[in-house]
């Protein structure tokens, strides 16, 4: 990615998201404001980053044309990020505003789960748009094969020894803790691997750039979800845990890909 293509706007907005996450990390590490400060920094910081990502994604979709094959994937990914941001805002309201523990399963989970099908549809539709240029069968087979292997790994490494057998866990919590990693695998990682397989055939061509960032974002979000499921199952999760950064960072990367897509479509003055 050359500086001549990536605009100052992209560097500034992505940098602001990263700076926010670094600030959260500093607040949490130094325990600024005690326990409440840690929880507030973690919850509010993540909400701000994900909401910023949703706004940027919506704006990119609008500029690229929401009714076109170019803008539609971004509209779907933006809707998913917005849903996640609403879930985060509710989580922060309960935990910081009301001073209560967030129920699990709870209302935020409904919004978190809604992100999966929206992102999956967005990413898959982006990959399918390349069908006139690239044969899609091989990346599709590769993605599904990876999904099967990952599902087996999640069952052996997480579901069987922890989620499905942990004592004193409600059926709803057990179901949700199983659903998150499986949804991550099939609705986040598999579509991302598919689109990465598609754009890898572009050999570094500019049209591939945005979707490489999507892949990174999807993997980070999936890793956080799987980590959260494990921690929640053993009642070890606390706001400010390392898994929290994956959600913010993953959405920041999805925002980055939308910014790059805009840069490609609407050249701006180059960065210094």
């Amino acid at each position: 990615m050359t500086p001549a293509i990536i605009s100052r706007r992209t560097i500034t907005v992505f940098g602001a998201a990263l700076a926010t996450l670094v600030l959260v990390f500093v607040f949490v590490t130094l325990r600024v404001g005690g326990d409440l400060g840690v929880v507030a920094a973690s919850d509010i910081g993540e909400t701000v980053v994900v909401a910023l990502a949703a706004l940027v994604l919506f704006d990119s979709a609008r500029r690229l044309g929401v009714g076109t094959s170019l803008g539609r994937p971004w509209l779907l990914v933006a809707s998913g990020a917005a849903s996640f941001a609403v879930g985060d805002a509710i989580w922060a309201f309960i935990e910081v505003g009301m001073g209560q523990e967030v129920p699990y399963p709870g209302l935020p989970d409904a919004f978190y789960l809604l992100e999966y099908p929206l992102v999956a549809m967005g990413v898959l539709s982006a990959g399918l748009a390349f069908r006139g240029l690239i044969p899609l069968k091989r990346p599709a087979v590769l993605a599904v094969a990876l999904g099967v292997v990952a599902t087996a790994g999640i069952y052996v490494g997480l579901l069987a020894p922890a989620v499905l057998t942990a004592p004193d866990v409600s059926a709803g919590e057990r179901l949700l803790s199983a659903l998150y990693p499986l949804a991550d695998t099939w609705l986040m990682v598999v579509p991302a691997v598919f689109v990465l397989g598609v754009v890898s055939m572009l050999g570094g061509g500019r049209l591939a750039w945005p979707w490489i960032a999507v892949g990174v974002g999807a993997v980070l979000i999936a890793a956080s979800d799987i980590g959260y499921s494990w921690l929640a199952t053993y009642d070890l999760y606390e706001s400010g845990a390392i898994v929290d950064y994956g959600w913010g960072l993953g959405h920041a990367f999805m925002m980055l890909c939308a910014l790059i897509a805009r840069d490609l479509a609407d050249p701006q003055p180059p960065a210094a």
Partner: protein
Amino acid sequence: MQVYEAVSTALEPYVGVIVANTCVRATAISLGKTADALDRSDLPELESRIRGLLAPVAAPAVIEDAIITLRRTIETGALT
């Protein structure tokens, strides 16, 4: 430089070498030619084909940029 090389040069920054060459070969076949038999008279068909292939994945400004690069390469590239 031949016409097929000029087309590949114009497309390569966006879709990479392999896909660019595939586009050129596919267009040549649709015209009943081989890639190295393409000449200036095939340019309108080549441009149309490029627009059609890139339209689902690239913004209009990107497609125009590729077409302008192609025309510029052909004008200044001393075609053989």
